[in-house]
C-alpha cells in the first residue's frame, strides 16, 4: 500500500524519476568510452565489457540511468533482458568498421522490432570520426538502412568519443525528444 501511494506521489510530481537509456552496439564501438565521457567528461581506458556498466547522471534537470551493455557476440542475446521501461536507445557504430556494418544493421533492426522498445527514441552515434577512413554520418545511415524506420523518432550524429565531439549534441537532441514524449 505504502509503496503504491509513494510511487503514485512520485509519478504525479515527477520526483525521483529516472529515465532509462541503453547504449548498445557491436563490440569495440566505443560504448563504454561514451558512457564515461558523459559521466566524468574524460576518456577512461576501458576493457571489453563483460556484462554491463551503469551510471546515473543528471543532465538538464533530468536523472538519467544510462546502461552500457557489452557488445560481444556472447552477450548480445542478453540485451533483451534490459529492454523493459527504456526511454531511449543510443546505438553506437564504429564508422571505420565497414565490414561489420551489415551485422550492426541487422542487430539494430532486430532490436527495434522488440515490443518493449516500440516507444523508445533512437540516437545513432557514427563514432570514431577522428580515425582516418571513417564513413560520414550519411554513409553510415545508408549502411544501417535507417531510412526504413517508421513511427520512430531517430537521429544520427557523427561523433568522436575520444575528442568529445558530437556527444553533447546527440544527447541534447535525445533529451528533447524524450522530454516531449514523457511529459
Amino acid at each position: 500500500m505504502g509503496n503504491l501511494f509513494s510511487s503514485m506521489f512520485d509519478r504525479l510530481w515527477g520526483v525521483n524519476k529516472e529515465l532509462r537509456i541503453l547504449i548498445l552496439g557491436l563490440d569495440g564501438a566505443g560504448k563504454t568510452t561514451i558512457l564515461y565521457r558523459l559521466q566524468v567528461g574524460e576518456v577512461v581506458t576501458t576493457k571489453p565489457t563483460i556484462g554491463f556498466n551503469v551510471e546515473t547522471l543528471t543532465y538538464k534537470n533530468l536523472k538519467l540511468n544510462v546502461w552500457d551493455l557489452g557488445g560481444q557476440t556472447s552477450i548480445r542475446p542478453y540485451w533483451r533482458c534490459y529492454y523493459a521501461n527504456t526511454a531511449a536507445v543510443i546505438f553506437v557504430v564504429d564508422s571505420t568498421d565497414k565490414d561489420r556494418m551489415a551485422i550492426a544493421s541487422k542487430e539494430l533492426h532486430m532490436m527495434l522490432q522488440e515490443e518493449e522498445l516500440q516507444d523508445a527514441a533512437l540516437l545513432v552515434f557514427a563514432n570514431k570520426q577522428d580515425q582516418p577512413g571513417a564513413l560520414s554520418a550519411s554513409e553510415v545511415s545508408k549502411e544501417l538502412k535507417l531510412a526504413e524506420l517508421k513511427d520512430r523518432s531517430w537521429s544520427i550524429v557523427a561523433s568522436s568519443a575520444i575528442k568529445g565531439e558530437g556527444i553533447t549534441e546527440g544527447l541534447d537532441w535525445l533529451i528533447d525528444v524524450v522530454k516531449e514524449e514523457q511529459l
Partner: protein
Amino acid sequence: MDKKIKKFLKDAVRVAPKVSNKGELFELRNGLVSKYPQTRKDAIKKTIQQMTIGKDVSPLFPDVLKNIATSDIEQKKLVYLYVINYAQTHPELCILAVNTFVTDAQDPNPLIRCMAIRTMSMIRVDMILDHVEGPLRKTLQDDNPYVRKTAVLCVAKLFHLNRELCISLNMITDLISALDDSNLMVVANTIASLTDIYEMDSSVVPLPLLIQSHITQLLHALSECTEWARITILGALAQCDAKDSIQAQDIIGRVTPHLQHVNPAVVLSSVKVIVKNLDLLPSELQKQPTDKVSTALVSLMSTPPEMQYVALRNIRILLQKYPELLSKELPIFYVKFNDPLYVKLEKLDIMVRLVSTSNLKQCSLLLAELREYAMEFEPEFVLKAIQAISQLAIKFAYANDSTSATKFVTKALDILCTLLQDRDTFQDECLVSICDLLRYDSQLANLPLPIVSSWTDADSHLVTDSGKCNYIWMLGQYRFPNAEEKLQQFIDTFAQQGHSTQLSILLTVVKLSRQLPDTTLQHVLKLATTETQDIDIRDMAMLYWRCLSLPNADKLVEDLSNAKLPPLTSTLDQFSPELLHSLLQELSTLSSIYYKPLSQFKRRTVQHSSVQGKALDELTSMAHAEIAKNLNSETLLDLDSDSTNVPNANIKGGSALEELSDLFNFTGDSLLDKPMQKMTIQEGKQVPANGSAKDLMDLF
C-alpha cells in the same frame, strides 16, 4: 453504531490484493524494473524474502541482476545474496555480472571490495573464474587489511573450485608472500588459507617449511586474532617441529596463556601444541606446563556434555602418553547421575586409566564407586562398570606386592560375586570379569566357584557368546561336580553356539577327555569338523584329532591342555605406539574422537594405473576363489617339516597361479612345481586372502 461505521469504512476503503492474477513473479518483476529506485529496492527485498522461505524466484535472475549496480550498499548486499544463491542455476546469466564484480572490486568502499571478491570466488561458474585474476591480485595488494584478509581466503576458495587455474595464475606465490603481511589478522587468515590448500593438495605448498620460517610471526599473531583464527594457527604450530629446546620453550610459553581460553577448541589445540613441544624440554622444565595442561583439562569438565565427551576422548589419548597427568584429579571424573550415557562410559574408561596404582586409598575409593555404578540401571553403563572392576583390580595388583594385591583382588572378586548373584541380567559380564581375575590369580577360585557350580542350567543364566565361553573354560579349569552333565547341555546345542563357545567346548572336552567317556570326545570332534562353518574351529579339531592318533597321545594332550596361559598384566586396551603418535598430533580433531589417524579418513589416491589396478583386483578375487575351493575340497593339514619353511601363503591352483606367474614374472618356478598344495595355518590362524595378495605384490 461503531460496528456499522467500521463496516462502512472497510467496504469503502478497498485494499488491492497484494498478488494480482498474473502472479507474484510478475508483480516482483514489475517492481524490479521500475523507474523508481525505492520501488526497485522494495521489490528486491520482497524477492529475497521469497527466496529465504524457499520459493523459487530464479526466473527473476536477469531483473535482479540489473540492480547490482547501485551505490546503495544495502541493496548491493541483497543482490549479491541473491546472485550467490542462484548463480548455479543460471550460469549463463552470471556473465552479465562480471563487469560489476570487477568494477566493485575497485570500489572506494572496502566493504564493497570485499563483497565483490568474496562473491566472485564463491560462484562456481567457469566464466566468472576466468575473470577473477585481475581483481583478486589487486585486492591481495589492497591498502585495507580487511580486504587483504578476504582476498587471502578467496585464493583457497579459488583453489578449491579450479585447481589448475589457481596454479597457472600463480596465486599461491602471492598468497605465500601475504605471510609477511604487517597485519596479524591477515597472517592468521593466510595460514588458514594455506592449510586448506595444503589439505587439498600437499604438493602445491611447502607448508611445514613456511610455518617453520614464520614461527615468530605466528606466535605474535596468536594473541591478536579471533578464536577461530587462533585454532588454525595453533593447528599450524602443532604441525611443525621446534628447532631446539629454546624455541620449544618459547612456543610453550606463548601458547600456555591460551589454555585459559573460554573456547574448548582453543584449549585443546593449545594442549596439542604444548604436548608436541614438551618432549624437547629438559625434564625439570616439563612439570610446570604439564600442570597447566592438567588444570586446563579439568576446566573442560565443566563444559556441556558434548564438549566433555570430546575432551574425555582426548584425555584418553593424553593419558596413555602421560599416565600421571591427572592422577590427583580423579574425583572430577566421578560419574554424575545426570551425565548422558556417552559421557558416563568415557568417564568410566578414563577413571580406570587415571587412577594411580601407588595410592591404595584412591583405588579403594574408586572400587567402591564402581560398585555403586554396577548397581545402576543403564545396561551399557553397568556392563562397562563391571568390566572396569576387573580392569582396576588387575591394574592395581600388577603394580603392587603380592599381599596387598591379593587383598585387593579378593575384594574386587567379592564385589563381582555379589553382583553375579544379585544382578541376573548381567551375569555374563560378571562371569567374564571373574574369569579375568581368576586368570590373574587362580588361587582365589574358591570364592565364585560355589555360585557358578550350583547352576544346573547354565544356558538360562548366560546369553552372550563370551559369557558361555568363559563358563565352559571354568568347567574345564576347575573340575566342577557333574561337569559332564553340564557340558552335555552345550554339546547338544553345539551347532547353535557362537564361535568362541564352540572353540571353548572343543578345548574343554579335550582337556577333560580323561573324565569324559570316549564317545563324547569323538562326538565333539566330529561335530567340530562337520557341523561348523568356522575354519579355525575345524582346523583346531583336526589338529587335536591328529594328536590323538599319534602314539603318545595321552601325554601330548595332557601337555597341550595344561599349558600355562601367559599371565595377564592389563586388560585395558592400549593404542599401538604409531597410532598414539599420530593421535597426539591430531588432538582436538575428528580423528581424536574416532581414534583413527587422519590418513584413514581420506580416500587413498590410486598409485598404479587402472590396468594394473584391475589386474590386482582380479588377482585378489582369484585368490579368494582359490582359497574357498581348497577349503571345500579335502583339506590336508600338514604338520610335517614342510610347514616350517613356508613363510608365504602359497596358493596353488591350475590357471590362476599361471596367470599370477605371468603377471609377476615369477623366477622361482620351483615354488609352483611343488606337488603338495598347502596353506599355512598355524594354531588355527588362517592367513587372510588379501594378506597373501600383499605378499605377491611385494614380489612385484
